[in-house]
Structure formats: C-alpha cells, structure tokens
C-alpha cells in the first residue's frame, strides 16, 4: 500500500481509454467520490466492467451520463435508460454477461485461472462464439478470465496498511475486483489504525491495495 491520495490525484492516475472494474450493485458499494473525480477530470474512452451501470446521477451512472464510457461489460443495464440509449445509438459497446459468470470471470482473472466452466448460458445467445466442453457427460461453457487496468473499490473501513472490509450488501463485486485490477484504488468510509480491523475481519488484504482515498472532508 502506497498511501492515501486526494480524489483528484487518484483520478489523475487513470489515462484515456483505461479499463476500470468498479464495485457496487445499483451504486450500493460504489466509490462515489472517486467517480466524481473521474468525471471532473473528464478522461474518456473508458471500458467499465461492473455488475450494472446504476442509474443516472448515481455511481457508474455518472460516468455514463458524462459520455466517458466507450465499452461496458455488465450483467444488467436495465435501470439506466442512458446506457440503453447510448448502446442503441452505437456510442457505447455493451457486452452483457450473466451475473454469476461475470463475477467468476473476474475472479479467474484475479486468481490466475485460465477460465471456468459453467452451465449458465448453455443453449442461449450467451453461448455464441464460445467453446463448449464436456466434463463427466455434462456440457459447460468455457468462460474466460477478465482483468482491468484499475479496480475502483468502495469499502467500509480501511486500516493504515490497506486492509479493507465491507458492510452488508455493499460487499458485492468489491472483494473480487480487488484481485483483478492491475492498480487497486479503494475509497473507504473511514480509515482506522492498524489493529482496529482484526485479522479475521479483513475481507481484502492490504497487500492487494495500491492506494486509498483520503477521508471525506
């Protein structure tokens, strides 16, 4: 862990065209201050890998509305009409992935696996273009790993060495994307001294985290 950054300094790390995994489920557990800083910086052509694109004005929805996103890999965009409109107009390229497959692909990327076999999506349009592999007489889709340049995490607590934990339904994609981003930036609700988060309560070890966002003013 390299230290705590102001939101604008964290956003400045992100270049044009970067790929971002962003935690959150309908913006619950998303790093809102970091997203605001990226919008303020205005860097475009981004790929966003996330469960969903939230709704206009919240979480990832703010990146969509600002026109910064060129490509979305998500399981659901139905509650953000702007994503739908920009997809239909061709401004955003959208890859829709079943939610359980998406999280396993991210985990595989983060954990050095070459892929996973899942029954989900067999015989649907999700199967198109994929290898079908038979194991013990059953057919599965081969789903390949996903990684990203950055993982942007919304956490509950962080300690001074970057250990993170999460609260209730704000876990969602956060602990998994922490493994799959080449640079990991976490925005915690609070930053506490080492020892306040006991070892058994750590959900993301600090060794995975590159930067924390400084506490909110």
């Amino acid at each position, binding site marked *: 862990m390299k230290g705590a950054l102001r939101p604008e300094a964290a956003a400045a790390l992100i270049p044009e065209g970067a790929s971002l995994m962003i935690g959150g489920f309908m913006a619950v557990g998303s790093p809102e201050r970091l997203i605001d800083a990226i919008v303020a910086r205005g860097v475009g052509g981004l790929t966003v890998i996330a469960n969903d694109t939230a709704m206009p004005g919240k979480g990832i929805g703010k990146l969509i509305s600002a026109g910064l996103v060129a490509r979305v890999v998500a*399981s659901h965009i139905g509650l953000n009409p702007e994503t739908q409109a920009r997809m239909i107009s061709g401004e955003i390229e959208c890859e829709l992935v*079943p939610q359980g497959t998406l999280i396993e692909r991210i985990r595989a990327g983060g954990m050095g696996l070459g892929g996973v076999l899942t029954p*989900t999506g067999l015989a649907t349009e999700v199967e198109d273009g994929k290898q079908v592999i038979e194991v013990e007489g059953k057919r599965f889709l081969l789903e390949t790993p996903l990684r990203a340049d950055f993982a942007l995490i919304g956490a509950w607590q962080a300690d001074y060495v970057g250990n993170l934990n999460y609260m*209730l*339904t704000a*876990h*969602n994609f956060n602990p998994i994307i922490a493994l799959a981003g080449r640079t990991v930036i976490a925005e915690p609700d609070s930053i506490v001294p080492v020892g306040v988060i006991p070892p058994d309560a750590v959900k993301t070890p600090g060794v995975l985290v590159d930067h924390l966002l400084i506490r909110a003013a």
Partner: protein
Amino acid sequence: MDAKELIARRVAREIMPGMLVNLGIGLPSMVATYVPASLGVFFQAENGVIGLGARPPEGMEDRHLTDAGGGFVSAVPGAASIDSAMSFGLIRGGHLDMTVLGGLQVDEAGHLANWKVPGKMVPGMGGAMDLVTGAARVIVAMQHAAKGQSKIVPKLTLPLTALRRVDLVVTDLAVIEPGEGGLILRERAPGVSLDEIRAATDAALVIPGEVPEMTLAD
C-alpha cells in the same frame, strides 16, 4: 384481491420451513409478505445478504443494505453478508432451495424466457440465467396473459433464459407444472373454469381428471 396478490399468496404456499429462497424484483418480491416468520425461511437477494427482511423503520434505512432492486431492506437475526462470488456459488451450486422469478413466456417444454425482447428491451440477464440454471426449484410467477396475449405458448418466440425446465408456473388463472409430457394443469384460480383457462392459453395443456381450486396463504 388483485391478480398480483393472488399469485404471491399461492407461491407463498410452496415455501417450506428452513428454505433458502431468492425472490426476483417486482411481483416475486411480494411473496415474502405471505410467509410467516415462524417458518424460519431465509430470503436471499443476489446482491448479497442471506436473511433479507422488511423495509426498515422510517429514518433507519442504511445505504449499505438494499435488495437487488436497490430498495432499502432490513436483515433478520442470523443474517449473513456474502459477496457476489459466494452469492452465485450458492445459486449455481444448488444450495438455493427455491427461486421465484417473473416471466415473459413459458412454453410446452417448460422453458422460460424472461430477460429480453429483441429490438425493444435489452436490460441484460442479471442473475436470471444463473438462477434458472442452478436453483433447486424454479417457480415462475407471472400474469397468465399480457396485452391480451397468452404468455403460456407452444414454443418460445423470445430468447431462452436457460436450458432447464422450470418446476412450476403460477399465474392469476392457474398453477401449471411442466413435465416430460408437457404442461400439466394442476390448479385453477378461485372461480375460474377449465374452459376459461383453455381459452386464455395458447399452449396445449395436459388436464388431469381433477383440477382443484388453489389454496392461498393468509
């Protein structure tokens, strides 16, 4: 009682003590209202708490605790937080005892379409494909018809959600059990005749000698 309440009350009767149950957003989420706490059922939302409870008291909503639709919920005693990999591990691995989902169409093979209307609605499949593939029991809760069109069809015209045959379809007119031999009409809604169901259904139905009226949860 309106059609949605009727469906929710009938689905509630499928829920057995101690089950782990996922309720989709919309109509399916209404089912929880009719399941007594004494059953010890744990509701899961795929976004990540086992043991979802009702909306919290005014002023006590917390932004870290919502259902899959983003609405504020509470958690029951004994609840457990899980991340998305665990959530879908439970779903795909058959640990989820039951899922209740909405539907756009069910056909004579028992296949469900519920995630896409080509050229019109492309919201993404979210967790639907995993839920239908992996849950121990899949129940479709939907109106029998939409805009005068039967949603129980000979063959899906909308994109398939999963290869797996669903276990039960509960509508405002009937309870239908898909099986090897087709769609078996199991129950009629209160006051609805067999002829009315036949007339409202595009798919062929297998009709046993006796088709009792639904019993509804309180």
